């Protein structure tokens, strides 16, 4: 059974329909890059998966639990990183993690926090205030926050936004670690080059629907851009891979 299952999803904001009849499925362990032009609805879609917004119509299931009815169960298994850090500037890295550890009611808090700080390479700065962190460090800590409760599914909304080359590379390292060991990842991105290295599958969201989906093996190394452009021009074909 796919770990993320979306069927005939509609999302309306008043009279405007942002997502229409969207179908989307992810198997456990896949790393899906969700591509698409601005305003296509990627962030809205991700927010629905993250249980932050309710769908207008349609079925959404994560790890077998239905949204929005079983949202609490979904949230336990979900880790979300958006382009906003979701961190408190006036608290230290440690305090931020401790706060979220309590919110997720994690047993064995201290050990887990230490592990996570190690994972994202911030163990040395654990007692520093987050507002002194660079953007790259904040993003890494944000990922740490997101994996704290060991979620099965991770959602990333344009995590590389605002990062320079070096910070992005460090982020990628963390992303690879996080994605290892069977975690499922859905990541929206504008950066095709970066995403080519990380993802196992590429979906294109445009005009409120998934227009195309292709696995990493099926595409040439630098063929992603061409594929992407083509997907934007043609309407969704019924026989879509994945």
């Amino acid at each position, binding site marked *: 059974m796919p770990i993320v299952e979306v069927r005939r999803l509609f999302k309306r904001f008043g009279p405007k329909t942002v997502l229409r009849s969207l179908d989307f499925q992810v198997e456990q362990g896949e790393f899906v890059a969700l591509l698409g032009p601005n305003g296509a609805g990627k962030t809205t879609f991700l*927010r629905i998966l*993250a*249980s*932050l*917004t*309710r769908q207008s119509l349609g079925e959404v299931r994560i790890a077998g639990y239905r949204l929005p009815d079983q949202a*609490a*169960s979904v*949230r*336990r*298994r*979900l880790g*979300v990183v*958006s382009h*906003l*850090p*979701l*961190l*408190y*500037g*006036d*608290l230290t890295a440690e*305090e931020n993690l401790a*706060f*979220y550890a*309590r*919110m*997720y*009611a*994690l*047993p064995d808090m201290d050990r887990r926090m230490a*592990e996570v700080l*190690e*994972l*994202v*390479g911030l163990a040395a700065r654990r007692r520093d*205030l987050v507002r002194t962190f660079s953007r790259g460090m904040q993003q890494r800590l944000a990922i740490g*926050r997101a994996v704290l*409760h*060991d979620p099965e599914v991770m959602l990333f909304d344009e995590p590389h936004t605002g990062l320079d080359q*070096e910070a992005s590379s*460090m982020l990628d*390292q963390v992303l690879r*670690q*996080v994605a*290892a*060991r069977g975690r499922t990842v859905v990541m929206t991105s504008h950066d095709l080059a970066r995403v080519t290295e990380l993802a196992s599958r590429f979906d294109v969201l445009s005009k409120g629907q998934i227009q195309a989906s292709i696995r990493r093996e099926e595409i040439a190394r630098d063929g992603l851009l061409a594929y992407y452009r083509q997907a934007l021009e043609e309407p969704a074909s019924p026989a879509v891979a994945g």
Partner: protein
Amino acid sequence: MKAPAPDVNQVNAPSAPAREAAREARPAFGSPFLRAMFAILWKDLAAELRSRELLTGMLIFALLVILIFNFALELDPASRASVTSGVLWVTFTFAGTIGLNRSMAVEKDRGCLDGLLLAPVDRSAIYFGKALGNLIFMLLMAAIILPTYSLLYNTNLFRPGLLLVILLGSVGYVAVGTLLAAMSVQARTRDILLPILLFPVSVPVLVASVKASSGYLQPVVDMSAIQPWITLLIVYDVIFTAVAFMVFDYVVEE
């Protein structure tokens, strides 16, 4: 550049059933609700302790208001007795909105509200956590304003009855204020909206608090005059805490 950390996921990876069990396990103490609520309260207090922005802002504002009142009203000893409670409560009300606004703005600005909503906790835990924090800030402010006012005007404001009224009044004000701040912070016109929303609806609290405070500040305390006001305060507190608790979900859930 630091070498990549060892894959801690691999090192001590529990098996899948163990992970599931750990996930569903109850924490060591208390319900998740209380745990989350106190976590939020603790976070707000810790952050404020470090930056002291909120409290400083409220205090300076409150002192300025008292100063302005000094020029605006006749605060000589004779007329002072009748206006003291009014001045105090206007001060609390205005400075209170600063605290309420700030407390919610922190969550909104860095997207932290999403962080709170992503956690598998009841939304009302968020409400109570924030409301308790707001209440403590308001009481802290009162704790500093009262002696200051007493010093400036050479009166003794430390009557137990007055302290009770301040407590009850603050609870009611904060109960509605937290709810309304959660809404106003998500609107475009954020800064001016909270007072506009809050003041009309908090008139019963204000009236009751001022009258009850006034009563307790009299040389001879007449309980029969104060009683209905205390009752009104308690009624207001109970009703609005219940209402806010019930509708808070609708304010934060999209």
